């Protein structure tokens, strides 16, 4: 077999990194390092500039898609590292503290924190939504982090809740994204839930839904409008969670039971001696009929 070229190797390694379950990118990354230390079939990590640039790009994409969080010095709440706050390659905005920061996608460290001047005309509604969302997160997400951005005429709410429990071999992540158009009060949402359970196996839940709703924000008052948006988000997320729970029940009660029975219809385990003799008996019976 011909050895793959740099580009082909990079494509495979990047693909693996991007498919890492929640909280397990470091494990997958370290696995790639182990492969790369074989001199005969090195996959070039730390060896080839083009390759390393590609790996960094994959890590950046993974982190921003997975809503990895960062803590800025002196801040009590975490900020989500996402494309909505991306200013330059590794430079991100924390709208709440009105600061920009450099994020290292391999080490997850924050450096170079600088003040940032936000647009005053949109900041009031943005920060009002932020406060309302923050209360909502406290009420429904045990480890939730949210960030509210203003970009190009829309407000974007990003929510993430991580539960990483590698000691007990499971990890889980809930992500939701809500893009609010203030002129029409329309909300476009995406909810993604991923769970990985890997004790003696590899079981994964990958679940997602796209949602479009309109909030009844009749007032011009920012506080009332923010409350209306958050109320719509809460209802949509609760409906989704209920549908997911119902589907679990349905799968367990119907789909699963239809695949393999717990016991044969006779309600007894198989009599293996009988099964083995059955064929012989059948052959004898056939012979008897013919004769």
């Amino acid at each position: 077999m011909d050895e793959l070229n740099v580009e082909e190797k990079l494509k495979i390694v990047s693909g693996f990194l991007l498919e890492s379950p929640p909280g397990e990118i470091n494990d997958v990354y370290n696995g790639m390092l182990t492969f790369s230390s074989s001199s005969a079939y090195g996959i070039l990590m730390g060896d080839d500039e083009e390759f390393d640039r590609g790996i960094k790009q994959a890590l950046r994409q993974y982190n921003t898609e997975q809503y990895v969080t960062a803590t800025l010095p002196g801040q009590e709440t975490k900020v989500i590292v996402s494309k909505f706050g991306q200013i330059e390659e590794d430079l991100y905005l924390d709208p709440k503290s009105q600061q920009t920061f450099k994020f290292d996608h391999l080490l997850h460290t924050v450096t170079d924190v600088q003040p940032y001047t936000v647009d005053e005309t949109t900041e009031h509604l943005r920060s009002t939504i932020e406060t309302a969302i923050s209360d909502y997160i406290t009420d429904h997400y045990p480890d939730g982090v949210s960030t509210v951005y203003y970009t190009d005429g829309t407000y974007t709410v990003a929510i993430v809740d991580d539960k990483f429990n590698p000691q007990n071999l499971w990890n889980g992540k809930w992500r939701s994204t809500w893009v609010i158009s203030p002129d029409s009060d329309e909300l476009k949402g995406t909810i993604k839930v991923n769970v990985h359970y890997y004790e003696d196996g590899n079981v994964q839940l990958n679940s997602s839904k796209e949602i479009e709703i309109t909030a009844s924000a009749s007032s011009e008052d920012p506080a009332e409008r923010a409350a209306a948006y958050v109320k719509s988000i809460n209802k949509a997320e609760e409906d989704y969670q209920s549908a997911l729970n119902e589907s679990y029940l349905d799968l367990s009660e119907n789909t699963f039971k239809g695949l393999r029975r717990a016991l044969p219809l006779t309600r007894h385990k198989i009599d293996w001696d009988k099964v083995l003799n059955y064929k012989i008996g059948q052959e004898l019976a056939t012979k008897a009929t013919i004769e």
Partner: protein
Amino acid sequence: MFSTKMSDQIECALDLMRRLPPQNTEENLSKLIDLIPFAHENLLGLIDQPLKEAKCSKTGKDYLLSAYNQDGDSFRSPWSNEYDPPLSDGVQPSPKIRKLEESANEAFYTYRDMYYGNGVSSAYFWDDQDGFAGAIDLTYQSFYHTLVGDSVRKMKGAWDSIHVFKANERGRNAHYKLTSTVILYTITSKPELGHMNLSGSMTRQSEADCPFDEPSAHIANIGRMIEDIELKMRNLLQEVYFGKTKDIVNGLRSINSLVEAQRQADIQKELVGKLLERKS
């Protein structure tokens, strides 16, 4: 640069496959083999892939394609013992083991009927040091399309069982070592839910010593072991798939108000405190 031991690389590859989405096992395994081609054979033998079906051209019966009946690009039908596409020098079990394989295929055809109601079963045996070894594969798929009101609910489920055993004869007893993997896929789509894919695989090992008076007793012994472990694994899958992962989801987000729950807990604490105060 130093050279990592082959065994480390294999272990690392297995760890990787335990993490990457089971929904994409086939694609990821083939990419992994492209990346570390020297581990090709080891990986194919160690990572179970979803089973594929084929029809035996001679008997018209369905059988399963797996690493255990493959030689080059051909697969051996357990019903006719012939390779498709034909191979003149394909690997064959010895006549004695082939006879056992034939009985196993008959027996597991009945087993499949009783537990799965439908689906496909195949047994593949081969000669091994101090005895023989084999793989019993079972698969069943179900599809549902139900129309509720004007919304379509689509459900798809698939169960693949792969049992690989080693049988060593020791006088009048035989020692069996069994590795069982169940791959379970469930996919659901409906308007209120969107798309849900809950899939994966779990593996268990079991060992037993059983007496055997005639060769066919091996089939009954292995059959009982498989029947027991499949029931255990069925319960385990039910617990992990529909219990544990569901609990994890509901730990990420709470439908009920956490603030209200905390308030109730605080009131409770205060009441208990007051009660204790009064008593003292």
